[in-house]
């Protein structure tokens, strides 16, 4: 008896299921993480470029609509990244991707942050396919910052 009722309900599509909040969006549904990073961006700002403990990565191009500047402050003795700052010219997803990048690099060793993949950032923010390049740019920015720091060290040590 109950089973028949259940079957009837299912047939009519009335079984309770986890309903997603109102997002009937075909596209352009910002994930709440993206909006959170946009409204409350973490680590916005700059370090002194000439500080030898700072590595600066500047990637992107205004023509593409995305420019990211990511700076890392490295502890010289341990090689750990102690602080990070970012500034971004780009859409909400780009801002969120770089904000996430600064959060994730803090407290990690330089070799470790080089393994951060854009797919992880994209997954964390639920980026739609059209926005994947924002996360790629964030990954590039991390790599560029690390590269810049290493080059600086070579210069100060070598010179």
């Amino acid at each position, binding site marked *: *008896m109950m089973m*028949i*009722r259940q079957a*009837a*309900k299912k047939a*009519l599509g*009335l079984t309770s299921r986890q*309903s997603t*909040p*109102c*997002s*009937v*969006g075909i596209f*352009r*549904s*910002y*994930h*709440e993480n*993206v*909006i959170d990073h*946009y409204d409350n*961006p973490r680590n*916005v700002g*700059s370090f002194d470029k000439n500080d030898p403990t700072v590595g600066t990565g*500047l*990637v*992107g*191009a*205004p*023509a*593409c*609509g*995305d*420019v*990211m*500047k990511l700076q890392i402050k490295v502890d010289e003795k341990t090689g750990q990244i102690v602080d990070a700052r970012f*500034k*971004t*010219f*780009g*859409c*909400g*997803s*780009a*801002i969120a991707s770089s904000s996430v990048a600064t959060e994730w690099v803090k407290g990690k060793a330089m070799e470790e942050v080089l393994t951060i993949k854009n797919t992880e950032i994209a997954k964390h923010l639920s980026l739609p396919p*059209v926005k994947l*390049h924002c996360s*790629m*740019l964030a990954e*590039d920015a991390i790599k*560029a910052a690390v590269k810049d720091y290493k080059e600086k060290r070579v210069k100060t040590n070598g010179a």
Partner: protein
Amino acid sequence: MASKAIFSTLRRSLTKPHGGAVSRRHHLSTTSAATASEPYPGDEHAIVMKGVRISGRPLYLDMQSTTPLDPRVFDAMNASSIYDYGNPHSRTHLYGWEAENAVEVARIQVAKLIGASPKEIVFLSGATEANNTVVKGVMHFYKDKKRHVITTQTEHKCVLDSCRHLQQEGFEVTYLPVKTDGLVDLEMLREAIRLDTGLVSVMAVNNEIGVVQPMEEIGRICKEHKIPFHTDAAQAIGKIPVDVEKWNVSFMSMSGHKIYGPKGVGAMYVRRRPRVRLEPLMNGGGQERGLRSGTLATQQVVGFGVACELAMKEMEYDEKWIKRLQERLLNGVREKLDGVVVNGSLESRYAGNLNLSFAYVEGESLLMGLKEVAVSSGSACTSASLEPSYVLRALGVDEDMAHTSIRFGIGRFTTEEEIDKAVELTVKQVEKLREMSPLYEMVKEGIDIKNIQWSQH
């Protein structure tokens, strides 16, 4: 026993109220957000949609995409929907005659607005259909002798797409470039004209940047060379004075929902003297002089007619009001921010369309922050591809500036409070994003951005 269970479930499902989607249609006021202060948690008027939380209905400043229905138009349509339900093409009974009468009254109202005769107006579903009909219809009719079309790079997508379709059929199309202020260069137009040019199509008021083309001069050139002149006047009628004789147009496309009328209706002006022919897009019973078969949606047409009549009466007043609000908006923003550029000519412009670029700030991120203001942007991220708006690129705007534009649309029902609030929100967001922008930082340090070698990927 089993069937009883199934039927009772069915009955319960049909009588249970639908508890799903949010529907806040009762909130018709667009000024509610203007008076709302900072959103606080637990705000019962807050709307959450698509992951965004807004504290009330946004201010509507997107008049170029569509306009709200004027209540007087709604009254006329309402009455017409209920009473004029006959088919206007039924010749044999009172219901048809009454409906036909209503349509003819609307026809006269539309014709008066543009200085034409009612016999030259054809109703259809909108400016897109009118543009398609004219561009394809004229060229198909004269396809033996005329193989060339001239249009501009800043036309509406439907005109450009129709021209592309013609190109695939073997016609040739010249897309005229525009000057940096958005206006057509008349010399280039003259040079582009050939012996086999069958149509010149230039829109009167651009939907993205709001510039008004030199219609009389273009009309004169077309008359000299005896080429039919088509104009997409969807954004122009009811807003700037339109006269088909002065402009010497042979075809004009008009849209209902841009002048506080209903959506789904528009009109096409087809000149009778000198006669220009075109092949219809919709074949059938030969309604609308054979140019557009199909039963007319009487109440839509009635609404369009009333909207045109109101626009004619209130054009002068609207113009003064909108101009005042535009100055308030522009000055309000310019007082607090530098690096604000107006896209398109400021002199030859329809005041209700203000397209601004904010340097060093990207358009989509600005829109995301302006969720309490309904505006539109010409930035790449808001279109499906990564290309910035083709209209801005045609203006020769630098690529980085093309990503930063916002279009504010002001209309008959916009209030001063809405403008002030929009200024406040825009300034706040732009300042916040400039704080976050590496380009702004570089400019403040004195670095010239144009000289940097960017690493693209």
